[in-house]
């Protein structure tokens, strides 16, 4: 997918002015966090399971080469094939080749973030193969030619009338008199259309939530059941997964499943958890004749062993997005690439490069809510700071911020001057904002004050107050 991460500031500005988006994000903020909290409260072992889930992935990452090798052996033993792909180009080609060998005209797809990462739909379309997204949210945004705006709720940014408009624009034989003003009517319309596509598809392309080294199985989790139709009806099943999705055993998969849905939607478990191992057996009643796993690196092996190593534990539950004040204000599209929210702000610079994603590590207040809810206990704020440090070290932070920091560090080394300058500044600002205790506008801070007020400082600086209350201590 093309990135617009460079324009994060403009994207965010635009998002803040979008009333429909604000409404949609408010719905999200009211729903997911409370449901997650209730689900966690219902399971006394929840935090212990988070530790166990973290330990599983730590162990896998320590031995990733061994587990990938074992996984491949087991896939082959069960009659499937593994295609190793260094980058998006290789993965696109591998998938295209499989589709062409199957003479495919239609490919049904269940949701895959890796599919977004490698922009597989564009590639298939360019070769006259029609990709059909089948997750309801993904289907809607495919019609609108948009990327997903959330890991597990890709169309979270849309209102019902926008969905109805998309259906009317694309389902051209739809009776104009038929009302589409209820969510149920929209679902029925999509279900009927997609049923036809499911039945005609030549290839089914799914993601994978996990890969199990013990058995060579892939695990697919959905609530709709679309992945099961995708991998059971067509003649060929392709599962697309990145290399860090490995877990050692079926037991380990169970542990991670216990924290996944609870963190994501607050369900005890998602409706459909499907373990797929190889193609149909000779005497099976149904199932595809071919089973392929397309295994993608795309920069992940380089993150191993770096200060971003722990990011590879991520299971894409979306909890950090749901609890992030920045995501909650600007939504997913502002981040400009496939992944958004705190996990996106850490992962995207690692995958598409820091220069392109330079604003993302700064799109955070480092409030720490993300880390406190992450089922895999990923220290997201710490890693955001690592990116900021790198940015500073490689002179990629904005010139004005660098200049300001230089001035600050000079002053910090000269305490008397520090006190004089900041004391002056503080009393000046305080006198400006004295009447209301806050600013509606400040010179050079329009970016802040256009959307919120800035509290005015106390008339005396912290240092001054400290000295007055604690006479005799050094400051």
């Amino acid at each position, binding site marked *: 997918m093309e990135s617009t991460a460079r324009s994060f500031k403009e994207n965010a500005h635009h998002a803040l002015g979008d009333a429909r988006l604000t409404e949609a994000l408010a719905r999200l903020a009211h729903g997911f966090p409370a449901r997650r909290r209730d689900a966690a409260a219902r399971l006394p072992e929840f935090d212990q*399971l988070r530790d166990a889930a973290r330990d599983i992935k730590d162990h896998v990452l320590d031995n990733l080469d061994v587990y990938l090798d074992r996984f491949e052996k087991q896939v082959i033993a069960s009659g499937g094939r593994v295609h190793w792909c260094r980058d998006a180009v290789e993965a696109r080609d591998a998938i295209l080749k499989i589709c062409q060998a199957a003479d495919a005209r239609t490919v049904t797809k269940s949701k895959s973030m890796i599919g977004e990462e490698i922009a597989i739909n564009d590639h298939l379309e360019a070769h006259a193969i029609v990709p059909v997204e089948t997750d309801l949210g993904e289907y809607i945004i495919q019609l609108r030619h948009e990327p997903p705006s959330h890991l597990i709720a890709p169309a979270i940014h849309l209102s019902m009338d926008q969905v109805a408009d998309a259906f009317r624009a694309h389902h051209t034989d739809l009776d104009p008199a038929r009302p589409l003003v209820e*969510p149920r009517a929209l679902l029925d319309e999509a279900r009927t259309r997609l049923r036809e596509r499911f039945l005609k598809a030549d290839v089914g392309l799914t993601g994978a939530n996990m890969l199990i080294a013990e058995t060579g199985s892939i695990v697919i989790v959905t609530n709709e059941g679309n992945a099961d139709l995708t991998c059971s009806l067509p003649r060929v099943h392709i599962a697309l997964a990145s290399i860090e999705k490995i877990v050692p055993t079926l037991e380990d998969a169970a542990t991670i499943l216990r924290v996944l849905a609870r963190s994501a939607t607050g369900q005890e478990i998602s*409706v459909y958890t499907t373990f797929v191992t190889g193609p149909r057996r000779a005497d099976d009643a149904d199932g595809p004749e071919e089973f392929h796993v397309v295994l993608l690196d795309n920069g992940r092996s380089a993150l191993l062993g770096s200060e971003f190593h722990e990011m590879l534990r991520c299971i894409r539950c979306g909890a950090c997005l749901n609890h992030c004040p920045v995501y909650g204000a600007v939504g997913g599209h502002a981040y400009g690439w496939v992944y958004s929210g705190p996990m996106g702000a850490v992962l995207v610079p690692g995958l598409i490069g820091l220069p392109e994603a330079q604003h993302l590590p700064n799109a955070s207040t480092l409030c720490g809510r993300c880390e406190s809810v992450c089922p895999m206990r990923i220290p997201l704020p710490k890693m955001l700071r690592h990116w900021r440090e790198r940015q500073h070290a490689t002179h990629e932070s904005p010139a004005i911020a660098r200049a300001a920091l230089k001035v600050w560090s000079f002053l910090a080394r000269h305490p008397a001057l520090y006190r004089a300058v900041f004391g002056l500044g503080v009393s000046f600002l305080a006198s400006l904002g004295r009447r209301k205790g806050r600013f509606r506008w400040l010179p050079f801070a329009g970016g802040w004050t256009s959307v919120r007020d800035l509290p005015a400082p106390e008339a005396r600086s912290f240092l001054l107050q400290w000295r007055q209350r604690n006479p005799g201590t050094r400051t």
Partner: protein
Amino acid sequence: MSSRTDILANIRRSLARKPRVTSQSPADRLAALRPGVQPSRGRLPADRRLALFMAEAVRADATAEAVASFADVPGRVAAYLARHNLGAALRVAPLTRRDNIPWSKQPLLTPDFGPPRPEDSVGVGAAFAGVAETGTLVIQSGPESPTRLNVLPPTHIVVLRASAIVGTYEDVWARLRTERASKDGPTMPRTVNWITGPSRTADIEQTLLLGAHGPQRLHILIVNDLKDTVADGGFERG
């Protein structure tokens, strides 16, 4: 260099930069198959597992009823269909034949054991296990168990033996490994489907709707065979 060699070499090079944080070897872990943290709520005797399974399945929007024997199944199915104004045509997984369900006791029902079709309105399948901790059904694919039966028909009825209700997910794996063991070790079926409640989506304005692509209704008929089974159901990991 092939992509495979290249990726594996990159992984090894990257890992060498950093001390390991875990000590177990992959070979040991794969040999041990050690269960992790299992919720205490699943560690129950068989009769209480049945109650928990039903409560959790209902929480997930399924419906469940216990029946005394397989002979009662046709009557309960007919009543369920009547309650929901559904027709009498059933697509039945051949696997249920092992249970000798006397369908002829309900002459109005028309069970068909052929391959599932898109127009089927009611599917009847057989579960390999039920998991009490979350009210989850476990269904295996196989020669007599087509996977599409789980998702094509809008109404899904599943027959489950009470003795096949285990406490936790780990118990399912233990049972599956035992039952499918062969000389080369256990072999997974093409699919193991865990199903918890009917299909759903919240993709339109976060409104929860049942019956997205899979069934809108999931009804579980639990045949209470506990009195016939030894002590504690026998499926618990020792």
